[in-house]
């Protein structure tokens, strides 16, 4: 903008100052308690450890707190399934319809609810608490330097924080970034922050991997593992942002003023109501709407046989070679592809395709899951690459639609799908080859 704009802005600021001088009276020190807290929270020494510590702590609370209610819900919901089956038998419902409705649709739904609801009900209030307290802008402040070096905008961190809840929301939040170049970078990389739909997968796979590796897994090591995945996601975000700002989206990062709002102690009541109603139930509802029909569809794919094996079996077989290259297998690749509508579906689909009878397993224990996976040739490498692939792969359908809406461009949307997928493939391929080369599995 030209010098005229500067003069106009200066005149407005001048008038604002003159008016404020006449009506504002201060008694006491200008720098208060907030100032002191910020001195610690954003300091070079304590800033990062505090951030990582809080992240780990939140995951630990989520993982250890969600265990028991998850179990309870799954017992309840899967118990109800037996009732449904009994009713179906009593009504003489044909076997295929019972399969689609109860074993497909209802089970898909029950799985998603019992796995997703408890962690969300813990994670979202905790996260909202930090948000309402005013901590998140401090995180942005701390990470600003790194993002600037990557040629991106410091506010990108705030959009990433939104991405924890839901990448689609994170993409929408990118509107707070003024420069179109930096907004595109933020939009294209938002997916590297694991959203709520992927947390259950990360948590489960961490437990499986640690179990296979160290023989046992507890909530602390699992929390560390998930936190590690998040940190890796941030590093990849930085790297890809840097790459984009050197190639497709060249330019210098723009300066901006980040306001560090006053710390405000959140009102716990409204916080709980809001985070449960607006976030938890909202995300759950979305997941359920997608999961129910997808569950039915997958049941059909797993149960309609062509020749020797089911449709899923055929497709999985086709993808086997490619999956093996990435340290995964054909079914996993297929599960990620079929899970495009919602990331929550990946594990249920995978389990359904592993099970010969083509029904989602009743996962009352992690041990049952682990033995199923091991029986299908899993090692700790499979679990690790599953985490990596989930963290890095293409965004879900909703997010892609949001990106299309925000960028108004099919080209950028396509890139938003292909870029992360490329990164996921390269990373998983390298990890798998290195691990195999050294004979670690």
């Amino acid at each position, binding site marked *: 903008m030209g010098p*005229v704009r500067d003069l106009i802005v200066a005149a*407005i600021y001048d008038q604002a100052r003159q008016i404020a001088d006449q009506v504002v*009276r201060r008694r006491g020190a200008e720098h208060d308690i907030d100032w002191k807290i910020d001195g610690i929270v954003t300091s070079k020494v304590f800033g990062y450890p505090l951030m990582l510590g809080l992240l780990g702590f939140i995951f630990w609370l989520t993982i250890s707190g969600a265990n028991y209610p998850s179990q309870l819900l799954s017992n309840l919901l899967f118990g109800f399934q037996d009732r449904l089956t009994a009713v179906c038998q009593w009504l003489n419902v044909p076997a295929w319809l019972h399969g689609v409705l109860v074993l497909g649709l209802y089970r898909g739904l029950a799985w998603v609810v019992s796995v997703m609801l408890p962690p969300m009900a813990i994670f979202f209030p905790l996260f*909202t608490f930090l948000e*309402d307290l005013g901590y998140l802008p401090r995180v942005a402040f701390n990470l600003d330097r790194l993002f600037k070096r990557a040629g991106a905008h410091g506010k990108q961190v705030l959009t990433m924080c939104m991405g924890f809840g839901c990448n689609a929301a994170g993409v929408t939040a990118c509107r*707070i970034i003024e420069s179109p170049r930096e907004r595109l970078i933020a939009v294209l990389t938002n997916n590297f922050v694991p959203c709520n739909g992927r947390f259950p997968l990360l948590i489960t796979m961490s437990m499986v991997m640690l179990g296979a590796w160290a023989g046992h897994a507890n909530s602390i090591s699992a929390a560390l593992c998930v936190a590690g995945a998040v940190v890796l996601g941030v590093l990849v975000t930085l790297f890809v942002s840097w790459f984009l700002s050197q190639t497709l989206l060249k330019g210098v990062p723009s300066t901006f003023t980040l306001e560090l*709002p006053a710390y405000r102690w959140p009102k716990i009541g409204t916080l709980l109501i*809001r985070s449960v109603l*607006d976030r938890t139930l909202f995300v759950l509802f979305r997941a359920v709407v997608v999961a129910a029909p997808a569950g039915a569809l997958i049941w059909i794919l797993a149960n309609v046989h062509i020749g020797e094996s089911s449709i899923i079996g055929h497709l999985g077989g086709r993808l086997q070679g490619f999956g093996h290259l990435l340290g995964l297998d054909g079914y996993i690749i297929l599960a990620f592809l079929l899970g495009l509508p919602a990331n929550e579906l990946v594990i249920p689909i995978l389990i359904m395709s592993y099970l010969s009878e083509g029904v989602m397993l009743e996962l009352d224990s992690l041990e049952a899951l682990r033995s199923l996976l091991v029986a299908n040739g899993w090692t700790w490498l499979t679990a690790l690459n599953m985490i990596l692939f989930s963290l890095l792969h293409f965004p879900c359908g909703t997010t892609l639609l949001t990106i299309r*809406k925000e960028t108004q461009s099919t080209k950028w949307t396509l890139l938003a799908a292909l870029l992360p997928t490329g990164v996921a493939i390269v990373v998983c391929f390298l990890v798998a080859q290195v691990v195999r080369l050294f004979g670690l599995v």
Partner: protein
Amino acid sequence: MKGLAVDARGVFAKLNPAHSDGVIALAGNPNTGKSTVFNGLTGLNQHTGNWPGKTVVLAKGNYRYKSKLITLVDLPGTYSLLANSADEQVARDFICFGKPDATVVVVDATCLERNLNLALQVMEMTPKVILCVNLIDEAKRKKIEIDCPKLAELLGVPVVPTAAREKVGLDKLKEAIHQMVFAHQQTRPRPVRYNQEIEAAVAKIQPELEPYLRGKIDARWVALRLLDGDTTIITEIKKYLRVENVEKAPREQGELKVVKCYK
């Protein structure tokens, strides 16, 4: 970012003005508790947060006061209306083209000076402005006092102190809105005075703009935007008002004068 402007209009179209008696826009910097004011007035359960740029889409809600149904539109939290970002453009376009019956600017009492910039910018676009000085409780804790009557006098618009989290002052805000919309209370906003060159340029451009804008948009404000080189405003004016020819004469002269002023 065409999409956002379309969003603003889309929301406005959905407001169903035939149904409500008045449309009020709610503007303000981020972190002023604007969304809390919004929730406090409408009782809608909308998420409010303590971070910059939280409200990214326009939210609307209704409330009834003295048997009048008022529709409140929560604009994105912005620091200015100079259309630097998509958010700022949405907020500006709504105030300018959405033609709300009044605009409430929420400011943070603990940092009034910084927040007044936005208020002054809104007052350039429309005289129907109410200043809501929020977070007075927090200001009191920080030992900051605001002389609201004096502020109202200096700005020339009504000023209402509130503590929206504690629901203090919201009734007075409703009354102030009521007075402005239904009692047609007049305001006399004190415009920002710019330096001689700018004022001279504005004085030349403004009368030439007036026949095109036909009083639908403040001509002084448009003249200022042309001077500062904001090209988006022309397209927006054409789109919203379907005013023909606004692109031709004034803009070229505006640029010429800019060059003249600063050579």
